[in-house]
């Protein structure tokens, strides 16, 4: 299992059939996630993208094939160690309602036994990084935050112990369109600075194209294609075309979007909303 391609996560012939289920929810998956890239898993609900994500941090173990993280089969990883190296962000953030923002963010450092002073410093740094004033927010409880603020705390919590890998499962899915767009922009900027390896699950093609270094399109438990955003836009694959049509952009706008996304995770926040209808 030596790794020389720069692949941080590698799926080889991976299939997954839940215990007791009649058939696989994921089959024949071969995929590499390269260091520093943001790989977006795109597809409709039930296509197996969340399953794929959960196979990475051993929340699930493949029933066929193998998943390796940093060259080691996930089955050989200690699950707890592996998970602390892979920050996790989910829809609605999943913050602990009985912890303050500070304790939520400090969770992994505390579990890792960081000294309190260093932990506190790290929390301040992260809250600032995700655009929350530590003085105002550190002592609040999650229910005292807006949806967008909660999601920012979720990201800060995932980043707390500086994990090399980030797993994001529709992190912005439950937010209103304006908040979502602004968080997407900030995430892109953050990603440019931190250069984490990210696996990002979404069913929103626009989000996939804006944030992904590469887009992996999934359908019914199978991987259809993996392309850069601009090649995704010109792909002849039937499903890719179908997704493209949901954008309902006129040809010139599409070209503009292609040009825009080719700059990858852009240097400045851009607003593509103006192009839609």
């Amino acid at each position, binding site marked *: 299992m030596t790794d020389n391609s720069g692949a941080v996560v590698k799926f080889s012939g991976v299939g997954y059939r839940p215990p007791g289920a009649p058939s696989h929810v994921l089959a024949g998956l071969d995929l590499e996630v390269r260091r520093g890239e943001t790989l977006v898993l795109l597809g409709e609900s039930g296509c197996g993208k969340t399953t794929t994500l959960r196979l990475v941090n051993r929340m699930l173990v493949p029933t066929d094939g193998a998943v390796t993280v940093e060259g080691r089969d996930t089955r050989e990883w200690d699950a707890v160690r592996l998970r602390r190296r892979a920050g996790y962000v*989910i829809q609605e953030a999943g913050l602990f309602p009985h912890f303050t923002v500070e304790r939520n963010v400090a969770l992994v450092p505390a579990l890792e036994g960081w000294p309190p002073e260093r932990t506190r410093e790290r929390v301040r740094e992260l809250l600032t990084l995700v655009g929350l004033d530590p003085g105002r927010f550190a*002592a609040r409880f999650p229910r005292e935050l807006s949806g967008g603020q909660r999601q920012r705390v979720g990201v800060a919590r995932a980043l707390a112990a500086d994990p090399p890998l980030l797993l994001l499962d529709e992190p912005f899915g439950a937010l209103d369109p304006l908040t979502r767009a602004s968080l997407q922009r900030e995430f892109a900027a953050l990603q440019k600075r931190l250069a984490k390896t990210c696996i990002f699950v979404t069913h929103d093609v626009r989000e996939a194209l804006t944030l992904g270094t590469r887009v992996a399109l999934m359908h019914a438990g199978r991987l259809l294609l993996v392309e850069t955003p601009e090649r995704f836009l010109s792909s002849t694959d039937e499903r890719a075309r179908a997704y493209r049509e949901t954008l309902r952009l006129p040809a010139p706008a599409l070209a503009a979007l292609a040009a825009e996304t080719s700059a990858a995770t852009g240097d400045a926040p851009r607003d593509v909303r103006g192009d839609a209808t």
Partner: protein
Amino acid sequence: MSAAQFLESQWRELLALTAQHVALVAAAVGAAVAVGIPLGILLTRRASLKRPVLAVAGVLQTVPSLALFGFLIPLPFVGGIGARTAVVALALYALLPVIRNTVTGIEGVDRSVREAAEALGMTNRQILRQVELPLAAPVILAGVRVATVISVGVATIAAAVGAGGLGMYIFRGLRQNDNALILAGAIPAALLALAADWALGLLESHFDARSRAAREDTTDGRRRALARRIVYASLVAAFVAAGLVFWNLGRGGRAGVLKNVADGTNDGRAVRVCSKDFTESLILSEALAQTLEARGVRVERSYELGGNLCHDALVAGRLDAYPEYTGTSFTAILKHNPVTDPRAVYEQVRREYGEKFSLEVGPPLGFSNDFAILVRGDEARRLNLRTVSDAVPHARAWRAGFGQDFMSRKDGYEGFARAYGLRFGAQPREMDLSLTYRALAARQVDIIAGNSTDGLIGALDLFQLEDDRRYFPPYEAVIVFRRDALAASPGARAALDELGGALTTEEMRRLNYEVDGRKRAVAEVVREWREGKAK
């Protein structure tokens, strides 16, 4: 007696019984929590166990308390007579709400929160302790709260196995037809239940972390924090009290056992005398106890046990002697159909007790406590009633009130009604035997089945209708004794013989009235009676 007078004269006993009550509840709830929370956690981990365990806990709650005591008495470690058995029974009742709320609370933790905890690399233990338990705490505490309030109520039954508590007043009050006594038990019990509910409610809201932050900042918050500290302190105090009481009991029990072993012979062994939970049984037990003591036999008294628990305890070897009635033995214990010949009943009971239980049935005490069909005296005079047959034509317009015992036993209501062709306008009302006298006197009902020796018959001007068709089987009073205990001390045998034929029905009625009607202490009444006989 007014409430103030009662408090003034009885406050020590009231306090002691209340403390006993609190100790029983605290120990039972403590045990239920110690077992129920880990069990509940286990059920959230092993889904296949959930249904069967919750089903068993649910069934336990439906077992009537006296039946549960009956099961527990013969068991080693948890059984016997006294506080331990009561605590075990109470804890079994308290188990269901604790387990169920633990499961509900933990399963109610938001899926995304649990998933995040797992995905962030928390171990199962960390998830349980830092996430699941704190978030489930309000629900779990609500379960403990329900369990506590239930226990405060059920603990009044503990008096039936000699465990004391406020139930002593309630049972005594019912028996003696004394409202003040019933209230003396019921009011403190209700106050305890309210206090426990309030205290745990406060604790519960404290654990509801969602509202904690908002609370702490305000002065109101500080006041509540103080109240909370008081609650903690009193809960701790309750548990400490419970611990002390049980430590003491354990020590006493061990010391007793050691003493018997050390003696080697059985000469120094105490005879453990039991009574049922009504006045006459108490008087007879006390008469036995004093007669034994007069002959130098040491006596341990375990009085006021409910139902047939005395019999169970004798068979289990926990107690040695108690007064019984041949009719009860014949039908309720030996399960025979009623027979009306007193001699035949006595002989058969005596023989079968020896064969089946190794119990000796002593000579008849001289009176029998039969079912007495009673009507109000004024009514009897007005309608010129003398026998049950005289009353049959009037029955259609009458309401009947019978004790549970009379309604359910073979020689009770059903056979009685058939024997006389008796038909009431409405189904007889089933109530506690001791309440029927009062209900009759208060014209709530018109005919009851009481006991022929009851002191209230004279006191409330009730009239006993003659059983002219000789339906009711005889209920001769006898003393039942464990054979080994009897063999162990010659004094016991002599005392048993001395009590043979010692009491007439009229004497028994009078003694009952001294206690029930004139509210005198049993021991004193019995002493007087013994002195009177000696002259």
